[in-house]
């Protein structure tokens, strides 16, 4: 019964969504001059962002049955590879595009803008019985940095209270944007991390199972996995230099959950945005981003982030 909460969120959010979406659709229809939209929209990229794009696509297709939207989950890096090859219209990403990827895009004449669609908190999860409540970024680095030999919680410098259990580390696979983001934020270099951890690939549920069954377990993953499993695992507060901060909707939105609060993005291709169905889908996506984010277990954007996303759309279409 632990997931009654998510059920409650969905049962409340969905009718609200459907009604507001219907209302938006009416106004959207008049903007488009009453024209029937049709065509295919190809989306690929991060598996973290996919539920958001799928939710937005589902609502959009409900109003525009002529439009066929597909969402793939090749991972953030795999998505950009296809996107910059001109094979997809929109790329989902759980981290900003990298210089090397931009170079590939430029080479193939693919222009894009970064549009934030939701917030997420990389959450460090431990066993329920673990007495430790807060960990500093320094201590996280000590545990996860490449070459780290830490075997036990008692070996972590300055950790309070003392806890003598064997460290069991669980982390996402190296293709994941979550891995990229965490290694960059904590270890200071993207992709640099000790290699003797349990690599759970893209299956974050395996990390939850691992940590809930191991007293010395530690796992980092998206906020939605923590939110769905609050009865099984405990989230550590993160001290990024300004005291311990718990991952919550508020601390992520006001930016105090540092450095593990992150934005999730979509990158639409400028050329695709010339097609009316893509343009109106991207606008629809951002207009409904917060409702979709809540239904899918993510943290919604702040007003300022929303207006930045709208500015980015304007830049792409001008």
């Amino acid at each position, binding site marked *: 019964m*632990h*997931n009654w909460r*998510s*059920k409650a969120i*969905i049962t409340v959010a*969905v009718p609200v*969504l459907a009604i507001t979406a219907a209302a938006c659709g009416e106004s959207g229809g008049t903007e488009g001059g009453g024209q029937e939209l049709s065509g*295919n929209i*190809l989306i*690929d990229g991060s*598996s973290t962002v*996919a*539920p958001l*794009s*799928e*939710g937005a*696509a*589902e*609502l959009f*297709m409900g109003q525009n049955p002529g439009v*066929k*939207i*597909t*969402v*793939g*989950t*090749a991972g953030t890096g795999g998505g950009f590879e296809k996107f910059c090859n001109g*094979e997809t219209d929109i790329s989902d990403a759980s981290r900003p595009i990298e210089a090397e990827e931009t170079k590939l895009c430029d080479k193939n004449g693919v222009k894009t803008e970064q549009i934030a669609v939701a917030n997420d908190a990389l959450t460090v999860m431990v066993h329920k019985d673990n007495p430790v409540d807060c960990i500093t970024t320094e201590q996280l680095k000590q545990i996860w940095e490449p070459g780290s030999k830490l075997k036990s919680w008692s070996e972590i410098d300055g950790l309070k209270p003392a806890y003598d259990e064997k460290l069991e580390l669980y982390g996402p696979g190296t293709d994941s944007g979550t891995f990229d983001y965490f290694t960059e934020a904590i270890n200071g270099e993207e992709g640099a991390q000790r290699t003797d951890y349990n690599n759970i690939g*893209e*299956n*974050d*549920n395996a990390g939850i199972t691992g940590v809930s069954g191991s007293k010395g377990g530690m796992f980092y993953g*998206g906020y*939605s*996995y923590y*939110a*769905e*499993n609050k009865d099984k695992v405990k989230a550590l507060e993160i001290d990024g230099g300004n005291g311990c901060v718990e991952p919550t909707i508020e601390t992520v939105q006001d930016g105090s959950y540092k450095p593990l609060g992150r934005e999730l993005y979509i990158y639409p291709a400028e050329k695709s945005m010339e097609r009316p169905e893509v343009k109106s889908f991207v606008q629809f996506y951002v207009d409904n981003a917060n409702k979709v984010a809540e*239904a*899918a*277990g993510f943290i919604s954007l702040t007003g300022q982030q929303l207006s930045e996303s709208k500015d980015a759309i304007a830049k792409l279409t001008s």
Partner: protein
Amino acid sequence: MVTNEKTPRTGRTRLAVAGARAGSVSVFGKSSPGERAGSVLFPAVLLLALTLALTGLASLLVWSFVKGYPRLDANLIFNAPSTLFPATAGFRPAILGTLYIIAGVIVLIVPLGVGAAIYLEEYANRERWYNRLIELNIQNLAGVPSIVFGILGLAFIVRGPLDLGFIAASASITLALLVLPTVILAAREAIRAVPPSIREGSLALGATQWQTLSRQVLPASTPGILTGVILAISRAIGEAAPLLMIGAVTFVMFDPSFFSGGYTALPVQIYNYAVRPQEEFRNLAAAGIIVMLAVLLLMNSFAVWLRNRYEQRW
């Protein structure tokens, strides 16, 4: 299967064997205790191996049924997937995608696989180095990991020379390449198992090689070839890794088509649901496993029916 060497054990043969055995024992003495223990232990070990394998399979099936049971309804088959309404979401585009892809695989592997097997068994001269090279390669290809075929498909079928794009037809071709060695090897075995006397008799009566092949050898080896096709389909239907590589997307709400647009397949959809944080999706994945099993059993039972129709004994 063709049984040209084994004679069926009737009561008479069993009696004859027991009598001969008793004779041998009385002349040469009883076998040593160690040997007798071995003849008891060996079947026990075999039985244990079988039990282990079946327990694994049975526990997976029971788990899927228990977890997926609440979702076993018509929605599961007739509804499209949904991220917002997991309670009524289904697998319709994935089921159609899998059926299309497998149909394409069958159309490709039967003529290609049987053709290659006929060439290697009936025409190829084993003295030639290139025929031996082909044989060696087919055997090696049967052991290549599926993701390698995915990369091959991406480079040469989706992009590159064929440039078909991310469509279901590309998936069919890639999976056909993946399972072709299985079909060729099974078809060769089946053709080899046709007794030489049948071939020789046919040729002696004045039939050409083509007539012998098409009227004697192929009909006789059909059951064995169909077994190979069943094995190949069973492998192809469960592949997710190469499909992810060649662009089976995870979210398709509309019915796919074979030559254009996005598509998905059951294993890809199941994987996508299994890794979601929400419990509803994980139950949906379990229900999807049952759907996939049903699709596989339906396809295979058709092939088994065909095989039994062609089964013949000498």
